[in-house]
């Protein structure tokens, strides 16, 4: 378990520490599209988390949806 976590953590550490001097190639004034609600992947969290609950209850797969996990009493 901890071995499985060690590599991604170390990789993230190196990326965060080593690349802090990277120049942003999309300038702040070029980001107005991302402020538009239609570009939000999780515009309404309460509605998205309900649909994830339906998926988890009806399917064998779980995780990597970008949402919090939690006990769903699905078994």
């Amino acid at each position: 378990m901890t071995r499985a976590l060690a590599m991604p953590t170390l990789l993230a550490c190196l990326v965060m520490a080593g690349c802090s001097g990277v120049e942003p190639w999309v300038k702040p004034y070029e980001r107005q599209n991302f402020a538009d609600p239609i570009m939000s992947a999780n515009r309404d969290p309460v509605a998205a988390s309900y649909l994830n609950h339906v998926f988890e209850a009806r399917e064998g797969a779980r995780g990597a949806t970008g949402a919090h996990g939690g006990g769903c009493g699905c078994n």
Partner: protein
Amino acid sequence: MTRRPTWALLLLALAAAPGARSGVLPDDRADVLYHRYDGGGVTIDGPSLLVRKKFAEQYSVSANYYVDMVSSASIDVVTTASPYKEERTQGSLAFDMLNGKTQYSVNFTNSDENDYTANSASLDISQDMFGDLTTVSFGFSRGWDEVRKRGDTDFSEPIDRSTYRLGLSQIVTPRLMMGVNYELVTDEGFLNNPYRSVRYVDPDSASGYAYQPEAYPRTRTSSAASINGRYFLPYRAAVHGEYRFFTDTWGIDSSTVRIGYTHPWGEKWIFEAGYRWYDQSAADFYSDLFPRQDAQNFLARDKELSTFTSHMVSLGATYELPPLGWKFLQRSTVNLFYERFRFEYDDFRDITAGGQAGTEPLYGFDADVIRVYVSGWF
């Protein structure tokens, strides 16, 4: 590697990350949602309420109350038990703190029904970097469940869960945002359903088969990885897509593909349409019909562990309400979303259709999901 060095690396990663201008916490809002699932003999509906409030621009708390009212006459239930009704309530409390470009979130959730209790706690940390082009996030959850059984007050079995999450979100171009997520989940405890049975060939039975309780391994570890993208079109509209791969120690592999289109109409309306495809292989110990009683150590006939494909079509509309004249309310929306599912099973048979054991038609069903909600920002 021990647990301590792993957490040391995590802290080192956060310490090394560049801090600069501050990030932004989610907006203050309240949502009141009604949800309904109807398909395969199962109807589940109820409310979900969410309130989120910031304090001093640096702290935020949110609370969610959620109810499932279940009325089940699913194919499992009608073939081996009696239809039932039950209610599940879930409450969660979350606290967020922003420190420069780092956001810390803790969440506590309790879920309770008459034969199942689940508690979980989670910690998530996210960091904006590279001029806010990139957001990296880490998360960890622990869950403690208790499985009970109606009609057997002595039955109580625990489940312990651990979840590890890693995510990266990246602005790639002025129009394109991409993300990757990875999640590892381990469960240990009583993982099967105390009511469900498997069937096996029994020549002495008139139907040609008999039932025995299912038996699952007491541990399960799963990994899921996904990649997603969202693109702002040359006119004001967006397309998005996602692919997820999942694998676990029970032998289930699955793929999920999701695509969608979001189209505003004037200043008040946003319309959405989407399609999701899901496909999985069966668990190693799954069978629709075992050759004999106690055919192997582990036995499952849960259709969620079988080989199947599902399709989902989604339609939604959001309407921004005119100002209601309430000073504290900045804006509000009313939303309606509808999903239609089709589940097609490759090795789970509809034994209600009758016929020789093992030759019954394959099972499949449709389900409708409705989400209606009102959201307000203040």
